[in-house]
């Protein structure tokens, strides 16, 4: 069988997702989404009429981020008007889901080349703006014992006994790795600086990274969800669903949870034949992919099940995957996955993650897939797996294999 190829991967730097301080906050979501789309076109000198579709993840597709931002962004990026666009949402998995859908379009023969990625301007369209009936609708939330994600993250930590030091240590390491990766130019191949219409740079570096964060500075932060959970009654809901935890403990805070940021990313995927026609050199092939559902109250424990299935499709075992990218939604998500799979941190998120650089919800999946590809090339490794948990108990995983320049 022929595999779906990845020809290129780009992303914007991530700007802090608060309108008053974020460097990208002055942009519109459409403007931001066009940045990676234009870069893919320009870098390959691509005839955009050969692109079969543009699939973009976006979690809160309302207001200026709504109205099928994928199609609008394709038009605004100067793609041929024959190129359609579709916006998809699987919460935090959306960016990688967009790639999975694109891969399906290629594999089915619907399209030769597909652009896939995501965008989220959290400074402009705050989280939950598109609604969340699983929390808001009494007919759903009450019987399901729904809780918000941050409290699910604390629930995982409580269930597994992760201490504040455990989660803070992971966050410190993420910051250190991200800082070092930037210093060594490890993101250089993917990063597309965001420029204004005059060519002036708006942002060329991930804005939220704090490489000097240490246990002491993180230790000073108050838990984010404690007062909220107690005020709202979510602590009791979590304890009802998981009575074995006794009392919920609060270890997550702004410093060991993914940061709220603005950002966009895109990859160019396609078939062997379409790549050849356009003179593209494949960088990797998709060997396996899977999306799964998991228990929705604890919500964030699905990546292992997703990886199990993606690896099975790839015919590979955990030990054969050289590098892992697991979205650092919350520190406990990473610790849980490592505990479940035995993957050690020297193979996982080696250039830091969302705790350091931020998690632009709809884009992150595409971002970490690009980061994984860059690092496979830099480290001269063969197999990588990118995976994310997603709201209401979901997860996605994609296994890729690097294609060496010569062996195309």
């Amino acid at each position, binding site marked *: 069988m022929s595999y779906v190829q990845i020809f290129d991967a780009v992303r914007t730097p991530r700007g802090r997702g608060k309108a008053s301080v974020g460097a990208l906050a002055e942009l519109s979501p459409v403007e931001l989404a066009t940045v990676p789309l234009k870069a893919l076109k320009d870098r390959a000198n691509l005839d955009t009429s050969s692109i079969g579709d543009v699939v973009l993840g976006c979690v809160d597709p309302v207001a200026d981020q709504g109205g099928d931002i994928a199609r609008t962004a394709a038009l605004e990026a100067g793609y041929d008007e024959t190129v359609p666009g579709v916006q998809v949402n699987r919460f935090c998995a959306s960016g990688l889901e967009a790639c999975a859908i694109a891969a399906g379009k290629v594999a089915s023969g619907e399209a030769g080349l597909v652009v896939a990625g995501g965008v989220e301007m959290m400074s402009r369209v705050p989280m939950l703006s598109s609604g969340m009936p699983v929390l*808001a609708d*009494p007919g759903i939330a*009450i019987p399901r014992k*729904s809780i918000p994600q941050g409290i699910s993250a604390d629930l995982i930590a409580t269930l597994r006994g992760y201490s504040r030091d455990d989660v803070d240590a992971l966050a410190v390491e993420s910051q250190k790795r991200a800082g070092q990766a930037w210093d060594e130019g490890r993101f250089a191949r993917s990063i597309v600086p965001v420029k204004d219409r005059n060519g002036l740079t708006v942002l060329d570096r991930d804005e939220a990274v704090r490489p000097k964060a240490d246990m002491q500075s993180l230790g000073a932060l108050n838990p984010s969800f404690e007062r909220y959970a107690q005020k709202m*009654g979510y602590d009791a*809901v979590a304890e009802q669903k998981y009575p074995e935890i006794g009392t919920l403990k609060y270890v997550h805070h702004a410093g060991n949870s993914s940061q709220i940021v603005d950002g966009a990313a895109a990859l160019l995927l396609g078939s062997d034949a379409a790549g050849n026609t356009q003179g593209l050199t494949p960088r990797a092939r998709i060997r396996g992919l899977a999306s799964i559902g998991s228990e929705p109250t604890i919500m964030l424990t699905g990546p292992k099940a997703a990886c199990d299935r993606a690896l099975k499709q790839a015919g590979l075992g955990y030990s054969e995957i050289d590098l892992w990218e697991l979205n650092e939604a919350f520190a406990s998500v990473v610790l849980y996955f490592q505990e479940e799979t035995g993957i050690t941190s020297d193979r996982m998120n080696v250039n830091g993650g969302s705790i350091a650089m931020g998690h632009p919800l709809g884009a992150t999946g595409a971002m970490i897939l690009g980061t994984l590809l860059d690092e496979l090339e830099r480290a001269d490794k063969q197999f990588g797996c990118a995976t994310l948990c997603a709201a209401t108990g979901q997860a996605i995983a994609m296994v890729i294999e690097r294609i060496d320049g010569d062996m195309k």
Partner: protein
Amino acid sequence: MSQIITLTVDADGIADLHWNDPTRKANVFSPEAIDEFVVHVDRVVSDDAIRGVLITSGKKIFNAGGDLKMVGGFFEMSADALWSVMARVMHSFYTLETCGKPVAAAINGHCLGGGFEMALAAHARFAADDPAIKVGLPEAGLGLMPGFGGTQRMARLAPWQRAIEDMLVGTTYDVKTAEALGLLTGVVPAEAVLQIAKDWLLENAEVQQPWMVRGYGGPAGTPAFERFFHGLNARLTRDGADNHPERNLIAEAAYHGLQMPIEPALRVELRRFIALTRIPTVCETMQARVFGENA
């Protein structure tokens, strides 16, 4: 022919929809009363001589709501049959509030449950200034929920968060509190209630319910609305959701109903009212109460 409710039209064209059940201490919505009520509402619509409707009571208790024996019987009925019974009331209330003629209630005594729901469907409610009078929707206190549109109209008239919280536990109010919440148009001396209500009808020939006015937005669609329900759901779960199905269903009726116009919202409520009567534990509690009181 009417035994429980009479309709008398005066020289000004004001129809007195007068409740005075000869066999009971209090006016209640019994099957017989509903039959008569529906007939009178039809007449209000069709009789051009009628220019306004004044709802009055010949009893000290203005209206105590659903007849407990009838409500107890709801649990034995098929969903279809119960829908038919309830929908007649739903339609007659909706007809009253949209027929183009002003409707006012002259509340001279306790006005509770279905009785208060009837008053909420009127365009104005004047109550006697008597601290002993209670008004409101106490259904949840009995493990039941409003089914004649109360969840929808009260949350549209009073501050919606307060209205929902109060309906969830069945809080009732004295007339001053109800007035402050916007649930009563006026609290006036007992001897003047009828005249003031009638004067209001004559002065407000063109009245519309606030939720029927073009451009009415309501509370839904705001971040505060979503946030309120996030917290409410967690609290209801914390406080033992399984023990209070009526609270979950009231919350659900408010959450969905407030996001749409009143007419479908009334159906949203009614479907949940019927769902409540299908829950065995609610049925047992209610029937024990009815038989207990009959014994």
